[in-house]
């Protein structure tokens, strides 16, 4: 009896730290937003609460998310088929490249497309040089297609990874059985492959939808002033129009809807047929043989390269090329290789934007990212253990831990501003809260990485170690830790890169003295002038390289045959 009670307290202790953290840094801000939103409705302040505006913003958010998801499927499904069935030169590289956008900061994505399609981008520069034009002819930025394009760039990797993973594990004997029963290729797909892949496709689509629905940086930077999703509107209302009550209402709408979709996603992606449809071993990849297969492979490879590689290369090359007329020398284009944009990062010349040299943003971001990585992984580890030891306590508390996964970064930022920008919190340096916000944003990914590995360790392993005389600390060190090491590494890289690129919450929390890299990039690219543009490119390139290193690490540390989702 005594031992049992001891175990209960032990478990409670496991819950305590994550619970306290969430209470202070998630539920407190959330409560503040709710209070604000509902007080606004009750007070009936016509000025701050405009139902038509909320409905319109919600409608557009839904519409662009739907369109984006459909387009992402159109790109992702053929690519998923390609990766799960065929071996071709450059396969590994292309697979790695398609992972990169997933951890690429939204700000960098926006700058990538800007460097390709913007008024100063390669496409317009090329056309201007070719046809001797004085004005950029292509105006694709500040439009819905620009948003959609970036969303497809961003999320195709999710479809490729999730659906492709399921497809390659789909038991080939089932489709062969259908063939033997007289089904042609079309019937085999329609009657077997599609229904069996539906949980993967549905789950992946809803996940993509969720990301598109809560899209912030991409819409803010590529959509222009005409388009605003709920996230962008919350940001605008709170930071520019100081209409906090409306921002609160929008946040509540957003949170409620994302929770609904997240719940649906969880339901849909449950494997429905157990292991019957999945084979333990991956089917062998083969080289495309027929002419149609070769054409298909080539077409998808070109499509993926154009969609993923082109914007990335465009950013890197554009950041080291000076292609614009200097001030006062209109029309005189001085083209050439330059490292000026990088050198300028170390100077404090553009004091109008920041009071510190831009490289300070890099230092800040690295510090925040390191702190956020530690916080998120400590919390993730504790939460994983707490969730895994599912007693009665666990079942009661679990939803409380799942809820923050549905909160968007902007909502978080808004909540932080409302709770912590007053005494006693503001006595501390306010930006020091950034790592906490980042840790919350990274927590879902950390949990998604750690929890499956932890659940995969058979209890018998620990019991065996226990009967051999190992105490709990010893069991953790000798059994859990070695098994978890790779996952822990992956989740740390995830948390680090998420924090580096986080823009939504940071845009609320960082100040003029304490910018993070994405905040600095956003400010630079919003300003006129070739130098500001160039510095945005240079900083984005640095961030891109860090993320590229991160995605290589993730891919290498990933257990063979194991998918991230």
């Amino acid at each position, binding site marked *: 009896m005594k031992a049992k009670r001891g175990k209960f307290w032990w478990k409670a202790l496991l819950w305590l730290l994550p619970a306290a953290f969430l209470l202070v840094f998630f539920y407190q801000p959330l409560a503040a937003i709710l209070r604000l939103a509902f007080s606004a409705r009750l007070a009936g302040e016509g000025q701050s609460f405009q139902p038509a505006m909320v409905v319109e913003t919600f409608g557009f958010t839904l519409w662009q998310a739907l369109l984006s998801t459909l387009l992402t499927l159109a790109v992702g499904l053929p690519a998923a088929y390609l990766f799960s069935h065929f071996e071709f030169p450059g396969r590994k590289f292309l697979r790695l490249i398609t992972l990169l956008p997933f951890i690429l900061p939204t700000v960098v994505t926006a700058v990538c497309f800007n460097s390709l399609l913007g008024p100063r981008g390669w496409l317009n520069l090329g056309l201007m040089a070719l046809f001797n034009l004085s004005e950029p002819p292509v105006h694709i930025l500040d439009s819905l297609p620009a948003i959609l394009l970036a969303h497809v760039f961003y999320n195709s990797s999710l479809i490729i990874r999730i659906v492709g993973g399921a497809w390659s594990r789909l038991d080939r004997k089932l489709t*062969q*059985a259908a063939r033997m029963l*007289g089904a042609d290729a079309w*019937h085999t797909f329609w009657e077997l492959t599609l229904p*069996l892949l539906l949980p993967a496709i549905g789950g992946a689509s809803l996940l993509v939808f969720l990301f598109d629905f809560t899209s912030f940086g991409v819409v803010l930077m590529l959509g222009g002033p005409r388009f605003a999703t709920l996230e962008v509107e919350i940001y605008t209302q709170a930071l520019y129009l100081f209409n906090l009550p409306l921002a609160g209402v929008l946040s509540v709408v957003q949170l409620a809807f994302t929770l609904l979709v997240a719940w649906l996603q969880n339901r849909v992606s449950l494997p429905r047929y157990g292991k*019957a449809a999945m084979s333990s071993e991956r089917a062998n990849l083969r080289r495309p043989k027929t002419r149609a297969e070769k054409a298909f492979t080539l077409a998808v490879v070109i499509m993926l390269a154009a969609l993923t590689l082109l914007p990335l290369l465009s950013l890197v090359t554009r950041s080291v090329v000076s292609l614009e007329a200097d001030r006062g020398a209109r029309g005189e284009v001085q083209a050439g290789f330059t490292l000026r944009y990088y050198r300028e990062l170390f100077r404090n010349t553009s004091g109008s934007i920041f009071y510190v040299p831009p490289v300070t943003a890099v230092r800040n971001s690295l510090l925040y990212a390191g702190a956020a990585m530690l916080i998120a992984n400590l919390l993730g580890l504790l939460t994983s253990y707490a969730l895994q030891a599912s007693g009665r306590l666990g079942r009661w508390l679990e939803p409380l831990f799942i809820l923050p996964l549905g909160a968007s970064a902007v909502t978080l930022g808004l909540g932080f501003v409302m709770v912590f920008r007053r005494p006693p919190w503001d006595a501390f340096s306010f930006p020091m809260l950034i790592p906490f916000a980042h840790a919350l944003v990274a927590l879902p990914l950390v949990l998604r990485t750690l929890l499956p590995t932890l659940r995969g360790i058979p209890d018998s392993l620990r019991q065996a170690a226990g009967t051999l005389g190992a105490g709990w600390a010893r069991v953790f060190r000798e059994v859990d830790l070695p098994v978890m090491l790779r996952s822990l590494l992956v989740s740390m890289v995830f948390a680090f890169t998420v924090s580096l690129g986080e823009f939504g919450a940071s845009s609320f929390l960082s100040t003029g003295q304490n910018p993070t890299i994405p905040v600095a990039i956003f400010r630079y690219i919003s300003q006129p002038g070739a130098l500001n543009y160039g510095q945005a490119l240079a900083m984005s390139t640095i961030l891109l390289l860090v993320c590229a290193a991160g995605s290589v690490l993730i891919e290498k540390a990933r257990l063979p045959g194991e998918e991230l989702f």
Partner: protein
Amino acid sequence: MLEIRDIHKSYEGKPLLEGISFTVREGETVCLLGESGSGKSTLLRIIAGLEEAEAGSLWWNGEEISAVPAHKRGFGLMFQDYALFPHRNVQANVAFGLRMQGLPSAEVEARTRAALAMVRMDGFEGRAVAELSGGEQQRVALARALAPDPRLLMLDEPLGALDHALRKQLIGELRRILHDSRKPAIYVTHDREEAFGLADTLMLLHGGRIAQAGSTAELFRHPVNAWAAGFLGLGSLLSGVVLSLAPLRVGTALGVFRVSDCARAWQPGEKVQLLLRPREARVFAGQPEGENQFTARVRDCLFMGENYQTELRVDDYSLTIQTELPLGVGADLVVGFPPDKLSCLEAE
């Protein structure tokens, strides 16, 4: 009916099938028996059209079908782990092939019911396949393969996943169903009990070739070589050298053996193996008298119901014999094999 001509296939650069040829006649059940990795499943998949051979051809009633895609061959294949469609119930699984033929739904339903009745699974129509036991899944898979009335039925280790008792029972049922359906069938297995229980013609697949083909009785009486005898579990093998011809005498570690049965001409000095069948051992007391006898020590004696299975040892060599009476463990006794009960086989 089905003729297989000189099929070649390699796996990961190594030859797997090196010129396989045989025919399957009307109503005949051909059993392909081989160790795992011998390429028997691959051969079946080539016949099914799921894999391509590197060389060779397939013919059906004199017409070449090598290039006909799997779904147009009209062959039925029952997979090793059944490959039942997990998202369909029993009825929909069995009806699948009939639906693919575009039959009217009333006929689909009637023939589905008939197929399920044949495997004694009527009443299970609405059940999810995940709810079925291994034996029930096996029957549904058989019904699904038979329902579209295939021209040829192929079975890939269909009893492999089941326990021994169930397997024994199902061998009998399979024999009845195969016989009733009068379909030519190819049955792949590594289990000789299944093969002996079902085959009209037995084919031993070894080293990429058909080592021996014939009726079960032929293979039992005249295994083609030492590997075949060992694989079929016909008895203990004893290495030796041909000492003289007419009469054939073989020198071994246990002494000299005279052999009257000889399937082929041997050369003096040639290395051979003698097959010592457990049933043919004669046990005496005293000292060995001349050829075909040796002294052995009893290591173990197991009661098998009808008789005793006795394990003997002579120095490093051990062999198993059958006796009608129990023998004391540790006792020394004389064992003999009559010349007409010994087989002299090609060594591997």
